[in-house]
């Protein structure tokens, strides 16, 4: 149980090429925080710096209030779970779990108790004598979780632990890790590039791009109030739609689109903006926005409809099965309270 505090962290592997920039984050005791972002944005680098596996170019890291910049990984009281499990291939499951404890000079009895307890929680008791290569991917990842929990660390670090599992197992393990978090109440830092994982697991989500924080917030906050276009397009599936246009007399104007925002006094005339609207907040066959159907993808319960408005391509998620012909003309309505506006110049959200 501990807080983790990252203060103005910078990291450059090669001189003057920052891959993590001015990273500031306070993680609360017992919090489940998810770092999410596209490949190469620096998620693993941040996690490895917290673990002590990678040097910090600049900045300070505190775990439980203690500066750990110069502590080796073993003295930071953290445990880490890796994408490809990283179990010792030449040791059986029991020894894999016991190894870290043995190095820390725990008594044989204490080790045995802790291993058995972890094995119980994760239901891997019957594999204890097996070697990692005799286990399936899901079983291996459970063992890797076990190796982390026997140590009873202050902080758990996960680096895309579910990426190697198939879709079904991933959903199951997701729930299991959440359950583990509820039972242990330990601070967990979880890295993923999968926004669905981030949304379903995190107490708070940190969205990263090119080594910089784009937004920090609860899943609902980042979904409903994205701080910039990147977050809007990264969180949610299908992604948020954007239409570039201009403000005139409190109305949003773009080719084929003319929406009265009822905000004449608050919006500056001539402001160039991007209008963001989520696919599920667009109704079809009502309103006055004209669109041409490009393709429909029936998913069973929903239908994804791709349409063209003026020059903009827009995706709609319609909550029932509908088949529309390509080339068909339809009308659309944007739910007015779900519309987001972003200033084109600053990428900041504009209050409506």
């Amino acid at each position: 149980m501990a807080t983790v505090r990252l203060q103005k962290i910078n990291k450059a592997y090669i001189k003057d090429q920052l891959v993590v920039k001015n990273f500031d984050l306070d993680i609360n005791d017992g919090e489940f925080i998810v770092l999410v972002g596209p490949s190469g944005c620096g998620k693993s680098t941040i996690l490895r710096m917290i673990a002590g596996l990678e040097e910090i170019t600049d900045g300070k890291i505190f775990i439980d209030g203690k500066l750990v910049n110069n502590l080796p990984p073993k003295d930071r009281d953290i445990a880490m779970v890796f994408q490809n499990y990283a179990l010792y291939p030449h040791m059986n499951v029991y020894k894999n779990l016991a190894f870290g404890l043995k190095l820390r000079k725990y008594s044989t009895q204490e080790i045995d108790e802790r291993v058995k307890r972890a094995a119980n929680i994760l239901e891997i008791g019957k594999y204890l004598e097996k070697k990692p290569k005799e286990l399936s991917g899901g079983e291996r990842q459970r063992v890797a979780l076990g190796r982390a929990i026997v140590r009873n660390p202050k902080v758990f670090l996960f680096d895309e632990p579910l990426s190697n599992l198939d879709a079904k197992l991933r959903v199951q393990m997701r729930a299991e890790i959440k359950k583990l978090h509820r039972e242990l109440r330990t601070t967990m830092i979880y890295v993923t590039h999968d926004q669905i994982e981030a949304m379903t697991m995190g107490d708070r989500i940190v969205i990263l791009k090119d080594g910089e924080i784009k937004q920090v917030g609860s899943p609902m906050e980042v979904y409903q109030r994205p701080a910039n276009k990147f977050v809007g397009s990264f969180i949610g599936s299908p992604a948020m739609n954007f239409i570039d246009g201009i403000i005139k007399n409190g109305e949003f104007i773009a080719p084929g689109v003319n929406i009265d925002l009822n905000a004449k006094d608050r919006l500056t005339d001539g402001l160039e903006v991007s209008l963001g609207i989520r696919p599920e907040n667009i109704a079809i066959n009502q309103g006055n926005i004209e669109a041409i159907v490009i393709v429909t993808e029936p998913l069973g319960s929903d239908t994804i409809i791709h349409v063209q408005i003026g020059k903009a391509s827009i995706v709609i998620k319609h909550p029932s099965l509908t088949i529309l012909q390509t080339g068909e003309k339809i009308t659309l309505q944007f739910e007015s309270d779900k519309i987001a506006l972003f200033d084109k110049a600053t990428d900041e959200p504009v209050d409506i």
Partner: protein
Amino acid sequence: MKSKIKKIFLISLLAMLALMFIYPFFWMIGGTLKPEIEVMNFSPFGSSWSLDSYRIMLGKIPLFRALFNSIIVSLVSTFSVLVLSSMTGYALARLRFRGRSLIFNVILFTMVLPFQLTLIPLYVLMVKFGWVDSYAALIIPYTMSAFAILLFRQFFMQIPNDLIDAARIDGLSELGILFRIFWPLSKPALITVGIIHFMGIWNEALWPMIVVRKLSMMTMPQMVALYAVGGQAESQVGTQLAAATLMSLPIIIIYLVLQRHFIASMATSGLKG
């Protein structure tokens, strides 16, 4: 039917080839047991058997002392090569430090230098250190091997990075990672390096001849060479063969014991002999 004939033909061809390779060896062993006059006969079998050749040879030279020296030198050197070369290989494969590629290239470069080139300077060094006629001279130049470093480096580079990270978090030092994680995972490389180096140093005759003159410090190949060509055998071929047989015995035993591993490791360490 046709394929069966082809198979029989192939098998007999291979058998003949195998025989061609193994025959001189049987002939050598046969020669040590035959009466001296029949030694040069083509057949490895003589009209009668005796261990006279061995008895005569052992009476003339301190072969057991040489055997002891060879074992000490080869074991210590092989052990040291395994430890030191794997340490170097680990550093080159896994640690980030200034000058790493330069060091690696220098090590590679030493591999292309023929031993004859460094022989004289090395000998001068041994004289300056006062190591002539000692184990130090026989062993210390052979405590490291560029070939072994290279092999370990290649092998270690295939071990996933996360495994090292996990071990660091579990609390292992770098040496701990090498000996407790990498070594158990590198058995093929260890066995390959071990056997190749052991054979090499066991059969090395040139270097001992240069730095050792005392009979009591000589190694097997040196002693056997001295005995066979140096006149002491008084042209008795049987006794010369007996010395050669004793010299090759340990290698054969080691090979037979480790054969299974050796063939497997040649395959997995990417070395085909």
